[in-house]
């Protein structure tokens, strides 16, 4: 019988596959928010008993990833007036097939790594690797700045998943630091998207490469 942690981890894999296969940016943002809220439960489930620090991390994570980031991203999407399509360089089917390959690689890699401690679910390391790989893939292959920010958040979710169950000590400080960094990064990216859009009337990063002085 799968425990709740493993249930969340399987959910993480499925949302990653949706992220790779869908063409709507709005759905991508919702999926990342969904991932974030699911991940917010991990610090609570990783420990035997509830502590104030893990509660604080969970609340902050759920608030930031489930509400603040989606709101910010939807707002910048709206202000940028772009078509709500991802427009990737690699086709959606190709992305999904990459997802399957990445999952296999992460399982192979996860099998070779020692578990960071007792009570850590076996699935955790492969899924965290998989999420990080999907995030990196998204940053490289998506054309729009907004979807690159979404991919960045997926990458961060992978790191969070790794940390939430694996790190037992000094968790509060580390996680809070990471959350603050991510928040600032998304904030800055939101402003940058707005500026890029105002200057060039698009947020297509492929066309930014051909800029001239």
């Amino acid at each position: 019988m799968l425990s709740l942690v493993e249930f969340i981890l399987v959910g993480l894999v499925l949302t990653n596959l949706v992220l790779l296969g869908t063409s709507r940016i709005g759905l991508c943002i919702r999926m990342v928010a969904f991932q974030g809220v699911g991940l917010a439960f991990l610090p609570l489930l990783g420990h035997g008993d509830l502590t104030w620090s893990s509660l604080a991390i969970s609340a902050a994570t759920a608030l930031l990833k489930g509400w603040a980031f989606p709101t910010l991203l939807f707002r910048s999407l709206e202000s940028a007036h772009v078509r709500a399509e991802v427009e990737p360089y690699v086709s959606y089917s190709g992305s999904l097939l990459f997802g399957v390959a990445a999952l296999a690689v992460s399982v192979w890699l996860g099998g070779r790594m020692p578990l960071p401690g007792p009570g850590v679910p076996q699935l955790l390391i492969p899924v965290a690797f998989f999420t990080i790989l999907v995030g990196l893939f998204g940053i490289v292959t998506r054309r729009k700045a907004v979807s690159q920010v979404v991919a960045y958040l997926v990458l961060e979710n992978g790191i969070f998943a790794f940390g939430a169950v694996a790190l037992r000590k000094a968790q509060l400080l580390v996680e809070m630091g990471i959350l603050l960094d991510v928040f600032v990064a998304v904030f800055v990216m939101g402003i940058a998207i707005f500026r890029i859009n105002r200057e060039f009337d698009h947020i297509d990063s492929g066309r930014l490469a051909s800029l001239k002085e």
Partner: protein
Amino acid sequence: MPLVDHNAVHWGALARAALGLALCPLLFGVINRVKAKFAGRTGQPLLQTYFDLARLLKKGAVYSRTTTWLFPMGPLLGLACALAALCLAPLGGMPGLLSFEGDLFLFAGLLSLGRFATAAAALDTGSSFEGMGASREMQFAVPAELAQILGLAALAQATGSLSLSEMLARIDMVRWEAAGPVLALTGTALFLVLLAETCRIPVDDPNTHLELTMIHEVMVLDHSGPDLAFILYGQGVKMWTLCAMLAGLLAPVRSGDPLLDVSLGVAGVFALALVMGVVESSMARLRLLLVPRLLVGATALSALALILLLR
């Protein structure tokens, strides 16, 4: 000690195959009746497909002068493959007519061979529309077959057997409790494969009459009379076979009484037809570009199930 005796031909298995042969046209009737109820119509009679088959068998076939021996062979080979696949498929946890280690690959191969026969016959007519349909059918078959093979491999891994009958006989409530997510993922993937293989919405629309959007229907446009009856019946047998497999996976209720198990299996098949009717009434078919993505998604689900088992 294997649950299934591989060497004996059972009269029960023969009866179950005959049951499939007799009842499979009724599946179309059930799906059409569900769609009619959703649309607020009375709908065709439940037995319409039987009437259609009888009418088509009475007619003569018309062959274009451009066609060769490939053309009449298509429906024959298609039906033969569907019948052979039916012999392999278990019903309600009871074994099929034939079963041996590794017959799941023969099963997938038979379905592919049937598809090849239909597509080759379609290409033989030299019609551009039929060529287009054949091309689409083959394009969608690639991810669908991958999803099916990976899904069956996941089932084989979960149950430790390489024979369809043995595999489905071993799936019961206990195994669902032990490996529920894996079986659910496989079941979802195989359901999507079922929709693709039987050419139903959202992959293909059996009722469309616009050649540009047809897939399976456009491939059989030139067939007439008994040939068309063979194709129609072959579709029915294929749908029955795949539904029986999926019902055995999704609703593994085993009572021990053979008669009750078989009637439960038949009920499962018709319940799946009901679900297909509901799916067909509640959603439009996907854009052609989206279909491969759906099927690659099914492949990803199967692969995920297999990876979860292999880790």
